[in-house]
């Protein structure tokens, strides 16, 4: 499946949408599909500083607990409050209402280390 073209990706199946000094982060359609029914999302707190590729929370499906990593360093400015009562939004709309958090990137050069849609496509379709 083709990946959305306006996003960058990590090997850990997260996506990032850069928009000025804000970056929105979520997990890819491939990831939500592999996880199955998502029942719980644990995210860092607003104001927390997070470092690129660090473990920042968990995503739980009915059967499994999976670690969540951040594709960029930054300060957490918003988390998706909808997910507390509707974690399945990540399954339904991983690139839309199922986004996870927004950060203010503190190391702008880091995005160069992320994957393009085509590069990620190769990983997801391996």
């Amino acid at each position, binding site marked *: 499946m083709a990946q959305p073209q306006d996003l960058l990706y990590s090997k850990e199946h997260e996506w990032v949408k850069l928009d000025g000094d804000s970056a929105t982060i979520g997990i890819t359609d491939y990831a939500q599909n592999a996880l*199955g*029914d998502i*029942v*719980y999302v*644990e995210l860092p707190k607003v104001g927390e500083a997070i470092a690129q590729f660090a473990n920042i929370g968990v995503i*739980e499906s*009915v*059967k499994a607990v999976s670690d969540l990593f951040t594709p960029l360093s930054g300060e957490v400015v918003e988390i998706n409050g909808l997910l507390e009562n509707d*974690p399945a939004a990540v399954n339904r709309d991983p690139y839309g209402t199922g986004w996870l958090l927004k950060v203010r990137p503190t190391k702008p050069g880091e995005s160069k280390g992320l994957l393009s849609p085509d590069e990620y496509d190769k990983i997801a379709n391996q």
Partner: protein
Amino acid sequence: MPVQYAGIIKEHDAVRRRAGLFDLSHMGQFWLSGEMVAPWADTLTVNAVGTMKPLQARYNIFCNEGGGAHDDTIFYRLATGWLLVVNAANADKMWKLLNERLPPAGVALENRHGRRALIAIQGPRSVEMLQPHVDLDLAALRYYFCAEGRVNGVPAVIARTGYTGEDGFELFVDGNEAARLWNSLLIVHQTDGLEPCGLGARDVLRLEAGMPLYGHELTEAITPVQAGLKWALKLDKPDFVGKEALVQQLERDEYSRIAGIVMDGRAPAREGYPVWREGRLVGSVRSGSIAPSLENKNVATALVAREAATVGSRLEVEIRGTKHGATVVPLPFYKRAK
């Protein structure tokens, strides 16, 4: 049997509302025959085998000397012998155990593991969906009884048993017929909403229904008494392996036991998470899941100290270093409307 087909929650909902189809052919099937089967099996198991009526099915547990469980099983009493269904993970252990304990005469054992298939249809509409495929009146087949008949013309043991908390049937057929039967039921009843179901849905369904899963609520170290299965113990049997230990455990009443808990919040309790009460570690979670039949609350079973197991008791489950509130509730979590 895969973990899931269309998704655990979708499969779960199909079983609670319509029906689901399970391929349980991985489970161990042993055939026991001879005039000594019942008296012999009664010395190895906690429940009664000898009092079973023809075509009755009965849950039973093989214990070790310490009262821990080797396996939990179902006996089916058929016309010419007994079908014993054991857990897949315990099939080799149980086959060895039965052979080691075999009496000098009067019992013959046949291992049908891998040669006989087991397909279950479970859910409120199973009677209606299965009826056109069988040569007997399913409405007349009582819960925990079975019949020898035909499914799609193929000889089968048809049992009104299951592991989901719903009405349903388990169909034992020759392994060579399994794929055809599976496909036929799915194709014919696709428009009725029959869903193929995997291990994931099975685990959620059985947990909601308060049924133990071997390796979780019942192990070589966790006894049927601790698992809340006292109803399955026939302590008036003269003797059986583990009886003394189980009687002592019951008399002392100090044992840690399986409690049903409901989490306050959305974080799921998972196997192995520590359980606390008033600042004291009292046990750990044995199984946990979101429960779609309980408005998506998180439920779990935990093996906890006696005083922590009382219904209404407030506990805390430690999840990644943080304690989350939970309350002990009666088991089962879910009971179907009758």
